[in-house]
């Protein structure tokens, strides 16, 4: 547990970066500090490992006042990941990862072995170990940054906008893997971002800070969307709050309807025969939904094939997993060309379809129950 006790940072020129901040980041969970530029989120993060000293107030890690620990000793027990990864360009990937164990004077061979495990654990191939950072892409470097922070097995990790310098696709990938990794390692994490969507996606708790370093609200993502403390938080959290909140509620009782399917590679004639309303759902060999195929109803017949080929499929529809959120199920229905949302089971196979009306009535029923 990390506890801020009325922490203030005032600079000599009078600027107040953080103003009497009190908050608690619970153990084994992700607490996100989020806010616009100048809200003191990075300053707050850096006061935890004493990269910046508070003007007043205390920061506790469990029952230890951080001010009583020498900064290098304190920092070696805290993993730290920054925006551009900050890898050491002159050291190979494996040596970058093993940096903190080396600093702690651990056996070199054991440290390297651990580092190699971590490199694979963050999703990089083992042969990257001997490369230098310049040989890796930004996203790959960021993975190494996470591995380096984990190397000495710290209880705490501080992350300062670690995913904001990579493109959106890679960012989403890194976020998903980060959540998967955290499910395994269960670190106490304080995560700084200016991106509210990232905060809501990653945080167990989200602390919204306003300019001048004041805490505006500390809540779970669902609470934040459902019940913003004031106009500032509401504005910062942004539009579509009701719809986005549906992403946090899982739905277990979807009324699934059966749907005929054809496999990729089947004759087009078969597809036309079983199609109900001019559309037929196509699955692959394992039964995983691939997309809808338009047959008849005025669609131009494909020029030189008589088979169901991937390039003929409508690709717009999303697939929701059974046991996923209301939001995913509703989106599957809304994005489907047939109005029937495609739902898959745990192993990714087609399970059935659901309409938007059905999902909305489930949402209605649930809200009526909680009113």
């Amino acid at each position, binding site marked *: 547990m990390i506890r801020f006790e009325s922490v203030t940072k005032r600079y000599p020129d009078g600027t107040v970066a953080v103003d009497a901040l009190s908050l608690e980041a619970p153990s084994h969970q992700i607490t996100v500090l989020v806010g616009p530029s100048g809200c003191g989120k990075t300053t707050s993060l850096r006061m935890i490992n004493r990269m910046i000293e508070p003007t007043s107030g205390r920061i506790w890690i469990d029952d230890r006042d951080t001010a009583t620990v020498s900064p290098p000793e304190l920092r070696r027990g805290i993993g730290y990941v920054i925006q551009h990864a900050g890898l050491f*360009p002159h050291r190979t990937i494996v040596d970058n990862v093993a940096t903190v164990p080396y*600093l702690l004077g651990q056996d070199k061979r054991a440290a390297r072995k651990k580092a190699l495990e971590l490199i694979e654990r963050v999703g990089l191939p083992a042969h990257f170990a001997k490369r230098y950072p310049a040989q890796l892409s930004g996203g790959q470097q960021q993975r190494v940054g996470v591995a*380096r922070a984990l190397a000495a097995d710290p209880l705490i990790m501080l992350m300062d906008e670690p995913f904001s310098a990579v493109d959106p696709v890679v960012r989403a990938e890194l976020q998903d893997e980060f959540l998967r990794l955290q499910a395994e390692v269960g670190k106490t994490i304080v995560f700084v971002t200016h991106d509210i969507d990232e905060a809501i996606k990653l945080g167990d708790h989200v602390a919204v800070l306003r300019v001048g370093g004041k805490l505006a609200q500390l809540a779970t993502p669902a609470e934040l969307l459902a019940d913003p403390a004031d106009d500032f938080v509401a504005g910062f959290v942004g539009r579509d709050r009701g719809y986005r909140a549906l992403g946090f509620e899982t739905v277990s009782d979807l009324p699934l309807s059966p749907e005929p399917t054809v496999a990729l590679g089947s004759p087009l004639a078969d597809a036309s025969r079983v199609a109900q309303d001019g559309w037929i759902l196509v699955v692959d060999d394992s039964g995983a939904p691939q997309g809808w195929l338009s047959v008849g109803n005025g669609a131009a017949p494909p020029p030189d094939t008589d088979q169901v080929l991937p390039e003929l499929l409508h690709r717009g529809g999303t697939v929701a997993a059974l046991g996923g959120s209301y939001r995913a199920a509703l989106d599957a229905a809304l994005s489907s060309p047939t109005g029937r949302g495609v739902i898959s089971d745990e192993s990714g196979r087609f399970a059935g379809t659901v309409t938007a009306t059905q999902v909305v009535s489930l949402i209605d029923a649930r809200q009526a129950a909680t009113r």
Partner: protein
Amino acid sequence: MDHRSEDLGFLWDHVWLSAVPVIIGLVIALPLGWLARRYTWTYPPLMSITGLLYTIPSIALFVIVPPLFGLKSLDPLQVPIALTVYSVALLVRVVADGLASVPDEVTQAATAIGFGRMRRLVSVELPIAVPVIAAGLRVATVSNVSLVAVAGTIGMDNLGRLFDQGVQLSTPTAYYPPIVLGIVLCVLLALAFDVLIVLGNRLLTPWRRAVISQ
């Protein structure tokens, strides 16, 4: 005395007179360059002072070193001390700029994961500054090779003596062989030092040649 062994003696003197002051100069410039980087207000005055030192004509510096350092004239330390002054003058800026070439996020990451200041300097900042420092060493060494020759004209043994001999043998008619030999040996020596530093730099920075090879 046999000319060849005399010339070889001059060459050897020239070698150590060129190299040793650069090495000592680097050792002195490291803390000064670090200071200029660590306390940024010291950077402008340090650069002005070292810049001014470099403008002192070498022949004048050779002459004033003995009284300043309590040596007798033509003391064997006279030339190395003067050349060390020049090397320091050149290298303080080089060290400061080399340290400045280390990306901010790298020094921050090093601090954040628990490097002490000294350890960070030795195992992170200096290794990354090697290319910039090596470039400065090339300039300092080559410039030293030519400055050493000037000391030959005040009677210190090194390749500069060949120019002195050439001038003396050129009355009444010009006699070039010692001068040409001196120039050729100086150029070859400078070239050899340059190659050594470039090789050393390559050896110390394998990471700079690493390219993406999927």
